């Protein structure tokens, strides 16, 4: 077994992992960084983000407004000190990306342009047409190439964390091409593996978004926080779930039902705004949780369109005209044409809500440190406390820049004060991990992986979807427990070493099942409705007395997780009613 000593190991080379790596390379040049990713960095799912990144730049805007939008958008489940740090640093970190070459869309005078986004009171979303994530990721990857202290381990799959003396001391990774494991001995580790959207059947996520980091930390006793909060993006393509950015609505796109009616006005988001004149926090610029819920309501009323690819409503961009669509939303046009055969210049796009984002994740403090000494977590796999019960669109791309930088700094500071421990005990641990992995490879059961995966995705949609009730959540929990048992008996046909993707899918399925379990159990325990966790049984309202709290799911091997709660940090915004549309204006007065 190859043993590689480094100072900081980063697992995941998407936006946040790369940002952290560059932070360390630039400001702690004496430290070595191992940047580990199961794919080449530019394949990471940051690449698929479209709309943009929030950061206050306009004179009419303020940090307080960004703070208020984020906290109310998160239904007061945000850590307010974290939100404060975030809004103060967002524009600065987006500027940093600009200095590194990110081609943000500009105004005619050469300054940064910003667009409107859901739940945001002012235009503050920096964008690079509708490929913001793509440009951020490529900018960061290319900038990372400047730094020889960053050693990349591309296409290396993380098998487990090595914990000794209650500290993280390294990770065991599998070289996918070789089929051989390596021990990376590190003083600190940053988890930056992204979300877990693939636990659901219909999602906007890439195939690699399988909750690896969440599950790894969770299995080592770190809590997964607020996992019940799953964001459905209101506008995914039917069938595939491919994302149609919120930027479509930010630019003036509207949602209509089968009668051509802008139904959002019936659900507290009105009054109807004139076509082509989007108004912040009104109608189509409401928050994602609410707009996705409106779809479900319309579906109940029979107002949706039933097509070959299932029930849809229409996202209508036609009034924007060809020139604006080509300038601001060229990728959307390309995607709609290719995947549903619709040119948005001439026809409305069929859309439906699809799973998009996990608000929860590995619990960290305000400075990205987890409860496991030496382990930090950032980005979608982490719950630093920014998004609360519902994330506002465009806050997560800024999050990866702000907290990627912070985690880099924190992990570097920690590594500087720490010495490498003896390698021998770590090596023994690593051998055990490898033995366990080989046992999985050699499993010769009869259960088909594809079936387990499909049943998991379907039961998650069923039980912990847009609206939830006790009975169906319980059913999901039971199904997941059964699937975990069946997972013990899966069949892996391919026993080879070189680029064995069947084996990787099997490990990922294990990660997915654990993450799914944390989601379902956190959901059933939250006996209230808040943000994206909406129940239509007796717990259909928010209950601040009992549940103004973060949920914490703790892993129990072969048993249901234990759910605990922790307090929410509230600095200056006391919980209030969460209102959009006309009501938000009344409230302000």
């Amino acid at each position: 077994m190859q043993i590689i000593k480094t100072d900081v190991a980063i697992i995941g080379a998407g936006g946040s992992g790369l940002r952290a790596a560059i932070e360390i390379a630039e400001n702690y040049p004496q430290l070595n960084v191992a940047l580990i990713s199961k794919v080449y960095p530019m394949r990471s799912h940051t690449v698929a983000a479209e709309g943009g990144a929030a950061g206050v730049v306009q004179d009419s805007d303020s940090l307080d407004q960004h703070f208020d939008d984020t906290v109310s958008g998160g239904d007061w489940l945000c850590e307010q000190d974290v939100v404060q740090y975030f809004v103060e640093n967002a524009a600065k970190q987006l500027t940093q990306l600009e200095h590194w070459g990110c081609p943000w869309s500009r105004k005619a005078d050469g300054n940064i342009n910003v667009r409107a986004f859901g739940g945001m009171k002012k235009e503050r979303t920096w964008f690079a047409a509708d490929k913001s994530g793509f440009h951020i990721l490529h900018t960061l990857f290319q900038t990372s190439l400047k730094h020889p202290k960053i050693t990349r381990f591309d296409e290396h799959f993380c098998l487990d964390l090595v914990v000794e003396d209650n500290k993280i001391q390294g990770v065991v990774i599998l070289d996918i091409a070789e089929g051989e494991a390596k021990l990376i001995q590190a003083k600190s580790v940053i988890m930056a593996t992204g979300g877990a959207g693939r636990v659901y059947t219909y999602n906007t996520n890439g195939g690699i978004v399988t909750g690896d980091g969440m599950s790894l930390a969770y299995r080592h006793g770190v809590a997964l926080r607020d996992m019940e909060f799953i964001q459905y993006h209101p506008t995914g393509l039917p069938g595939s779930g491919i994302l149609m950015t919120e930027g479509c609505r930010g630019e003036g796109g509207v949602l209509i039902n089968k009668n051509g009616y802008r139904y959002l006005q019936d659900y507290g988001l009105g009054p109807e705004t004139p076509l082509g004149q989007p108004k912040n926090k009104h109608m189509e610029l409401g928050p994602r949780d609410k707009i996705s819920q409106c779809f479900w309501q319309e579906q109940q009323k029979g107002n949706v369109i039933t097509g070959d690819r299932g029930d849809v409503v229409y996202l209508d961009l036609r009034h924007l005209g060809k020139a604006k669509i080509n300038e601001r939303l060229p990728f959307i046009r390309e995607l709609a044409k290719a995947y549903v055969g619709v040119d948005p210049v001439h026809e409305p796009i069929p859309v439906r809500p699809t799973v998009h984002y996990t608000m929860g994740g590995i619990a960290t403090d305000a400075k990205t440190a987890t409860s496991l000494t030496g382990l930090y977590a950032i980005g979608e796999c982490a719950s630093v406390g920014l998004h609360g019960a519902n994330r506002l669109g465009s806050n997560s791309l800024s999050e990866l820049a702000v907290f990627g930088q912070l985690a880099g700094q924190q992990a570097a500071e920690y590594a500087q004060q720490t010495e490498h421990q003896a390698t021998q005990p770590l090596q023994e641990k690593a051998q055990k991990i490898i033995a366990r992995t080989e046992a999985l490879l050699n499993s010769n059961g009869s259960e088909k992986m594809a079936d387990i995966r499909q049943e998991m995705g379907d039961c998650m949609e069923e039980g912990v979807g847009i609206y939830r009730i006790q009975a169906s959540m319980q059913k999901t929990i039971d199904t997941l427990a059964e699937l975990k048992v069946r997972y013990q008996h899966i069949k892996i046909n391919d026993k080879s070493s070189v680029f064995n993707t069947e084996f990787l899918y099997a490990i990922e399925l294990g990660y997915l099942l654990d993450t799914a379990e944390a989601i379902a159990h956190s959901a059933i325990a939250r006996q209230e409705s808040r943000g994206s966790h909406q129940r239509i049984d007796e717990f259909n309202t928010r209950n601040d007395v009992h549940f103004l709290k973060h949920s914490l799911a703790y892993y129990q091997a072969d048993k249901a997780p234990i759910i605990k709660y922790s307090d929410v940090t509230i600095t200056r915004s006391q919980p209030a009613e969460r209102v959009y549309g006309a009501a938000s204006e009344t409230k302000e007065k």
Partner: protein
Amino acid sequence: MSTQATHAQQAVVDKVIEIEILRYRPEQDEKPFPQGFEIPYHPDMSILEALQYIKDHLDSSVSFRWSCRMAICGSCGLMVNNIPKLGCKAFLRDYYPQKVTLEALANFPIERDLVVVMDDFIKKLEEIKPYIIPERDEKCLSEGTYQQTPEQMEKYAKFSMCINCGLCYSACPQYGLDKSFTGPAALALLARYNRDSRDAGSAERMKIVNQEQGVWSCTFVGYCSVVCPKGVDPAAAIQLLKVESSKDYLIGMFKPD
């Protein structure tokens, strides 16, 4: 990397399409061989989804890379009927009822099945200094962003759209014949930075451009731009760099040492 819901349920049962994959399993095979599969045909189904169907239901050992399935991550490049394509952006409806043949991207060594060895391609991207080299010191964050007008952006915008899928390398016979050629995507990326108003690193990068294996290995076949799924037009980037390189040469002739 788990596969998504397949079209198995939706497929029109009586229609099938034949997919032939050039298999290569290094631990078992001396050389690649074709293997045929019959799968249920659905017009919406992409080549990638066809592969997922095969892996989930017919032969779990078939290996391929994929992730986003929306033509932006650049993972799933392969040869479809001998033409480089993204698997997620090529659809069965464009081939049915004919057989579809799939092969790993040309001009790259085959690691296994449809997976190629990308090392040389990645190395080339790394070598062309694809990052802003500022004029003097790095600009301070408190000074705010650089000014860059939409016109200035337009100069490099197209060349910044590359998703690193490698299709252009597999379309380039010059790269096929001589692997030392820097190649289309890397040169387009180089042009992207040279043409960015924030960058002052042109002189450094022109050393790479001017080499024999820089732009001058290109004979302007132009197929790279045809197969590019993102409209990057690497052939144009290279021709523009040839103009720059010629200027460098001429100036060099008249400049005293």
